[in-house]
Structures are given as C-alpha cells and as structure tokens.
C-alpha cells in the first residue's frame, strides 16, 4: 500500500507550445502532476509525449507557456536546474554511459550529491573516501532492489536491452528524485520483463513516495499503474482524468483506433 497519500500539485504545465520549424510538437497544453501520484502520458506515435518530458526537464525550451515546479514559475526549465531540484528521467532510446560499468552508471546519478572537491578527490582519502563509500552503499541498495547484483561490474554496452532499461531506471533512482520521468520504460520487453518493471515502478512509488510521470503504450499496464492519465494527440491535449473515465472517452477511442472505420 501507498505510504503517502496523493498530495498537492507539485508540477504544473501551463499553456505550453513547442514548435520545431513548421512542426507543432506541443500545442497549448496544460496539465498538472500531484505529489506521490503516478501520472501516465499516452497518445499515438508523434503525439508529443517525449517532447513534453523534454520540456519538463529543460532539454527543450517551449516558445510559449510556463512550468511551475514546486511553487516556482519558470519560462523554461534548465537541465541543471531540473537535475539539482529533484527531477530525474529515463529515455525512450536508452541514454546510458555505454563504456562505464553498471556500478559507475548508477554512481554517476550521485554526482550532484558529492561535495568533496578536487583536492580531496586527488588524495581519495579521509572525507573523500568516506563520501564515496556512503554513496556506494546507497547505490548497492538500488542494485539489490533492481536485482542486478550479478552484472554490477559489466560495462552496460554489453548488456541486453531489457537489462539496460533496468539499469537506466537504477541511474534515475540513484538521483533520489522527487519527480521521476519514465519514457516508455517497457518498450520492447517481453511479458515477464514488463511485470518486473511494473513491480519496480509501483514499489518506488509506494515505498519511497516518488512522484512518477510515465509514458507507456501498453494500455493494460497504464490502467493498472496510473492514478490519472493525460492523452495527447498531434501535440494537443485530448483528455485528462482517471483511467476509468479516459478509457471510455469517445475522442480517445477514436484517436487510438484511428478513423479507418
């Protein structure tokens, strides 16, 4: 069961529009995310879902609108600001550090939390070593949680796709985010891998209270996991509400089944 009840709005997207040349990736979209909830973002390919996550963590700058994050309004987020104030994410096309081991990839998620400067790093002694070991301990907990102990020292480039997705979740968790953005975490996985991934997502949300924004195509997963769903289509907001309402919305059904019939 959930340790923390769904709370106040933690992030609000207000009237955001994003264009790439002539392409309108996002057209005047507003929605919000409440603390400790799992918020799904769904829609057909090219609907603007990934672009929306990129706007939220500051990788894209929208031409119009603003983002209110933890009470602060921003014309646009910045990657550094997002990372340092508790937003972490995974990517649709895995963006791990391929030449580094699983352990180092997870440790990289701790970079912003490490305080000891150049001098101590050069000596790697006393405070620097203590700090490194404290963070290593936290990372080992995540490794245990995701059941990837056996591949700790393997360079991620050599891992199969499903495990890479898991490691990428691990790296995001290592940042101990308040808001976790997951871009199609189960794409390309078999049923068993999907069940594992769903379990991890649910546990993170329930045990740690992490707020999650999730892009996913598998509707049964979305219906099971999410508290509220945003539906995008051609960059526009089509519907917004709890799963049982959204799934009966005629506009949503049409967008998903297409206009062929």
């Amino acid at each position: 069961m959930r340790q923390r009840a769904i709370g106040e709005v933690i992030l609000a997207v207000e009237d955001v529009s994003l264009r790439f040349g002539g392409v309108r990736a996002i057209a005047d979209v507003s929605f919000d995310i409440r603390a400790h909830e799992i918020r799904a973002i769904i829609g057909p390919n090219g609907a603007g879902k990934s672009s929306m996550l990129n706007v939220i963590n500051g990788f894209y700058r929208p031409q119009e609108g603003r983002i209110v994050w933890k009470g602060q309004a921003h014309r646009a987020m910045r990657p550094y600001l997002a990372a340092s104030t508790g937003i972490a994410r995974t990517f649709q096309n895995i963006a791990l550090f391929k030449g580094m081991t699983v352990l180092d990839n997870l440790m990289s998620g701790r970079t912003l939390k490490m305080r000891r400067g150049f001098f101590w790093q050069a000596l790697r002694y006393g405070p620097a070593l203590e700090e490194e070991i404290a963070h290593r301990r936290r990372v080992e907990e995540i490794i245990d949680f995701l059941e990837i102990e056996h591949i700790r020292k393997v360079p991620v480039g050599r891992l199969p796709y499903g495990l890479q997705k898991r490691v990428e979740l691990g790296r995001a968790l290592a940042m101990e985010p308040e808001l976790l953005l997951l871009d199609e975490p189960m794409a390309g996985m078999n049923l068993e891998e999907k069940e594992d991934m769903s379990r991890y997502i649910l546990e993170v949300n329930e045990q740690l209270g992490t707020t999650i924004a999730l892009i996913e195509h598998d509707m049964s997963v979305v219906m099971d996991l999410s508290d509220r769903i945003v539906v995008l289509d051609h960059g526009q907001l089509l519907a917004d509400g709890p799963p049982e309402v959204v799934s009966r919305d005629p506009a949503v059904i049409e967008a998903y089944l297409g206009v062929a019939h």
Partner: protein
Amino acid sequence: MLYRETGQFKTSYAADQAVFPIRQDRIGLALILLVAFLLVPVFGSSFFLNTMMIPFLVFSLATIGLNLLLGYAGQLSLGTGAFMGVGAYACYKLATIFPDINILVHTLLSGLFAAGIGVLFGLPSLRIKGFYLAVATLAAQFFLDWCFNRLPWLYNYNPSGAIEVPTRMLFGVALTGPNATPVTRYLVLLTLVVVMTWIASNLVRGWIGRSWMMIRDMDIAAELIGVRPLPTKLLAFAVSSYYCGVAGALMVFFWLGAAEPPSFSINTSFQVLFMVIIGGLGSLAGSFMGAAFIWILPVLLRALPEMLGVTIAAATVEHVSLIVIGALIIVVLIVEPHGCARLWQTAKQKLRTWPFPY
C-alpha cells in the same frame, strides 16, 4: 592456480574499491615497484637508464596526461607536444629567474602554465567535437611551435635557440645539469611519476573521473544528470595539460639536458597519441604499456644485433626495426583494438578460470 580470487572475500565496499582488489595484483605491483626503485638503479647501466628507462618514464607521464583527456573525457587533442613545450619553457624560465628555489618546485609549478594554456585551447571544445576539435588543438600546436621558435625571451636570448639546463642541487646532490648522475635523475623521475600516477588513479575513480567518462559516453545524458559540460571538459584539459607540462619539464631537465623547439613538435604529439592508442584508451596501466611499446621496443630492437654479436649496418637495423614496430602496431590493433591493457585483462581473465574455462 596462481592467479585466483577464491578465498578473497571482499568484506567492505572500501576493499572492493581499492585499485587492485585482487591480492596477486597487489603483489605484482609491489614487485614492479621493488624492481623499479631498487634493482634498476643498482644494476642498470647508464646507457640503459639514459636511453630506455628515463625517456620511458617521461613518455609514460605524457601518455597518462593525454589519456586523461582522450581516453577518459573523450576529447581529442593533437597539441600534446606543444603543452609539453609550455611546461619545459616555463620550467626553464622559472629556474633561471628564481635560481634559489628548488628545481622540483619549478617542475611542479611549470605544469600550471601548461594547464592554463590547455584550458585556453580547450575552450572551443564546448562547441566542437571529434576531428574538428583535433584541428583546433592542431592550431594550438602550430601557434605554440611558432612561439618557441620566435620568442627569444623564452630561451633567454641564447644564440643557439636552445634551452640548456643549469645545474641544480638538493641536499648537496646535483639533480639536474651535466653533473647529475643518471641514477639520481631516474629516481627523481620515478618518484614523481609514481606519485602523479597514484593521483590520476584517485581522480578517475571518483566523481571527477566519472563525470569525464559521462561526457565522453553521452554528453546530453550527462547534462541531464546535472554535469555541466564546460567546467567538466575544461577541468579535463587543465589536468591533462598539467601532466603533459610536467612531463615536458622533466623531459628537458631530467632526460635531454637541453632542448630545441623540434622536441615539442607535432611529431611528439603523434608519438604520445600512438602510445595512448596502443596502450589502451582509458587505462592508466595501458599508458605505461603504450609508452614501453613505442619507446623501449625500438631501442631494444636496435640493440639486438649487437647483443647477439651480429654486425649489420646501422641504417639497415634502423629500417628493419621501423618495419617490425609498424607491423607489431598493426597486429596489436587487429587482435585487440582496445590496446595492450585490454589484451592483458583478457589474458588475466583466462588465467583466472584456467584450466576449466566453463
């Protein structure tokens, strides 16, 4: 049998994070240090020290410098020779302007000048990558080359255009200059290289090294994790150039005794680049292997006929050794594109599971 992890359970993360978590590796390192600090100085001839060990150490340090930048941070530089030159000229100027300060202090300070210049020429790395960045550092190489040739102040208006190393003492022993013995110079060099290698290995195992590798592997993801590309890249340029600068100062003061601009030319840049690639990108141990491969092997090959009592014309020996080295480089790169360090790793892995690999 001999090389096993069995029975060596790591009881803490601290132990697991040691540089050499396997006992046999630690014993191996201790043996190498023992040989390097005791046997080599006692039994090594002046010829051996002057033509093999001393240059080997100088190039190892420069290779570590370039490896930090290229192998860890993924930034390609062709200015290594010039950065070594900055260290050498800075050390020469410091040693002649402040003759009373110890030469070792000057050596370590001279790296700071190289670091400064390195940061300056690393600035374009924010906007350009790969070959384009290499071309920008090539510009640095040519510009600095020109400075070494055309600014007489740098070589104290010496009519020969060369810098000549003055004699400098420590505790009554000549460290540099014509009276410094090869053993003294070797030991000073060895100590500095060991300490600086230890520091480099500390840096690359902590968050600084990780953020370099993050930039190398995927700069966009690094940025979204909160690593700022510019400071991270510039720090890599600074540390790398510092190492190259100190290597350059050591090259002149503890090996050559005098130097002219060609010592710091583009050829040197390429030589160090080969050492990095042959040794293994992103490996400190590989840096030593690369330097040994490119420097010691040719010297050995050239000395081989004489050792065997065969008389061959010097020019022939020179040519044959070049051909052999070239062929060996190609063989190594075909067998293992990741260099000697990876070959060694694979061999160890095989040894660990021998004789039952499955």
